């Protein structure tokens, strides 16, 4: 088998540890974990509940600092940055999709998506135009002027996705983006995430324990008890399986 040439990793964790104090007990969630994530692909972190998936995501995205070890994103050390500098880094480079939809009840779909662009210095006109365009990409052009209260769950998640995508981030983090969706909507969102990685060369890191999503992932990291147990690529397994079959 020929070794595949990969670009430099866009996200790196180097022996990171994270623990939480729960009452009198210290809970070690991650211990000396190292991992590299690459651009242009959808990387899926899966594993049982409570194994530390979301915690790893928050370290790699700079929302939390590790107790020990270093995290790097786009070649920049995150662990040493001050709060304000981290905010600026996230503003420029990262998009997030969280488990809940977390949409402002007062804003229409277009406004939800345009709002974060304002902080990047977009004019109102440009922001709204970009918002409409991105909503079209996620198949929401027929719901531009509706507020969250009149959207279905799947539609809300697509608005949340569009909000994360609007600034064309190099890094996209998603934590259980499909947990509130039915099978079909879940597949749709997963397909969109993969398309963004492939078409825009973004780094997409997605946490999910939904096994159906592995189909759309380029790489799967299986976690257990704060460790990465398996690191595999569905396409390679498929081709290996096919070779075996032949």
């Amino acid at each position: 088998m020929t070794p595949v040439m990969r670009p430099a990793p866009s996200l790196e964790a180097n022996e990171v540890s994270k623990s939480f104090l729960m009452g009198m007990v210290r809970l070690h969630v991650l211990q000396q974990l190292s991992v590299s994530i690459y651009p242009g692909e959808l990387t899926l972190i899966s594993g049982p509940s409570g194994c530390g998936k979301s915690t790893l995501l928050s370290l790699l995205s700079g929302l939390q600092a590790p107790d020990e070890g270093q995290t790097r994103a786009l070649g920049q050390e995150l662990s040493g940055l001050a709060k304000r500098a981290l905010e600026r880094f996230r503003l420029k480079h990262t998009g997030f999709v969280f488990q809940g939809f977390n949409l402002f009840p007062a804003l229409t779909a277009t406004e939800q998506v345009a709002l974060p662009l304002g902080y990047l210095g977009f004019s109102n006109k440009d922001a709204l135009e970009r918002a409409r365009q991105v909503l079209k990409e996620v198949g929401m052009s027929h719901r531009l002027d509706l507020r969250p209260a009149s959207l279905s769950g799947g539609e809300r998640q697509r608005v949340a996705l569009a909000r994360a995508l609007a600034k064309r981030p190099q890094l996209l983090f998603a934590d259980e983006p499909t947990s509130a969706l039915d099978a079909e909507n879940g597949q749709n969102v997963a397909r969109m995430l993969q398309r963004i990685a492939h078409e825009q060369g973004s780094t997409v890191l997605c946490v999910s324990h939904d096994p159906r999503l592995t189909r759309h992932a380029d790489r799967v990291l299986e976690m257990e008890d704060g460790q990465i147990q398996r690191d595999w690529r569905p396409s390679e397994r498929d081709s290996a399986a096919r070779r075996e079959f032949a």
Partner: protein
Amino acid sequence: MIALARKTLFHEWRRFLPAILAIGFSGVLLTVQAALVLGIFGSAAVYVSSSSADLWAGYPGTQSVNFGRTISPDVEMRLRMDPDVTDVEPYLWVEGDWHGTHEKSGGVSVFVSGINTGRKGMMFSSLLSSGLRQRLEEPNAVIVDRSELDQLGVSLDQAAWINGHRVHVVAAIAGLRGLGGVNVLASLDTARLLQGEDSPGVGPTYYVAKVRKPSRVEAAQARLIANPSFGPFEVWTAKQFAWRSQLYWMFDTGAGVAVLFMAGIVCLVGGVITSQSLMAMVAASAREYAVLNALGASFRSLSQVVLEQSCWVGGLGLLVTGITSTVLLSVAARHDVPVAMNITIAMICAALVLGLALVSGLIAMRGLLRADPALLLR
């Protein structure tokens, strides 16, 4: 920028209503209280504010109109010598003991104002028509406030006694109510008669003067400094003297301190309610704010949203204050409740209302501490 603060406020106005009403009613309490104070203590200066005189010359250091002491008649000369002074007239203040005709009425202490009854007289010019002035020229004629007839134990056109002299009530008018005693208007001659034997001197209590142009008043006052050859006197502008009299009464009676204390409590209660309901609003949207922060909106820009919201709450609260106070005060005025308002005090009340909203917003910003994006990842 998408106007998040405004859109949220108008979309969820029901949840902002408590804050708006808390601000609004704090404002109403402040305004009505101020109006009552102005109304009640304004009557301490009714002599000044209902007269057209620009300058008042009286005994040096006089704290309030009712504490006037006799000054030398030469002061009139000094005033007339000033190039900007166009008219001067004496004003005589006499304290007296009133006995009405009704059986049960005991002695009532009254303040007799002896005034120029000429057509161009300055004293009480806004209360007295020239017809009423003329009637005061009859010997022993007096005019009182119509709401005080009962207290004086007298009816219109009846006789009464002041310091043992018989007087005749020729008219009863509105707007003459004073503080600390009942005001009685009389001609200078009648007043001198009532002053009686124990008169403290030959001169009047004040000289009031008219100045050519309102813009010259201060300059004229500055020129009219005491001069030993005219005896002791001091000159105030009408505005200064009115304010001086009101302040004296406000703080001498302790009412001023009580009012400030009440205003403090009103602001405190209003601020607590407003900041709590704003904080609840912020906390309710904490997850959405956290997403914005995750996407890079700084804590500072999120704080601005909260502050903008509190400005809206302040503005709408001010509207509530304005409308409610106007209605309340006009109803009160129609029922002879002593209320008054002026631009300065209205502006101070408005500033307090807005300040209260802003401070509440600053306190509510603490709710943003819950908007930690790491909490969204579990």
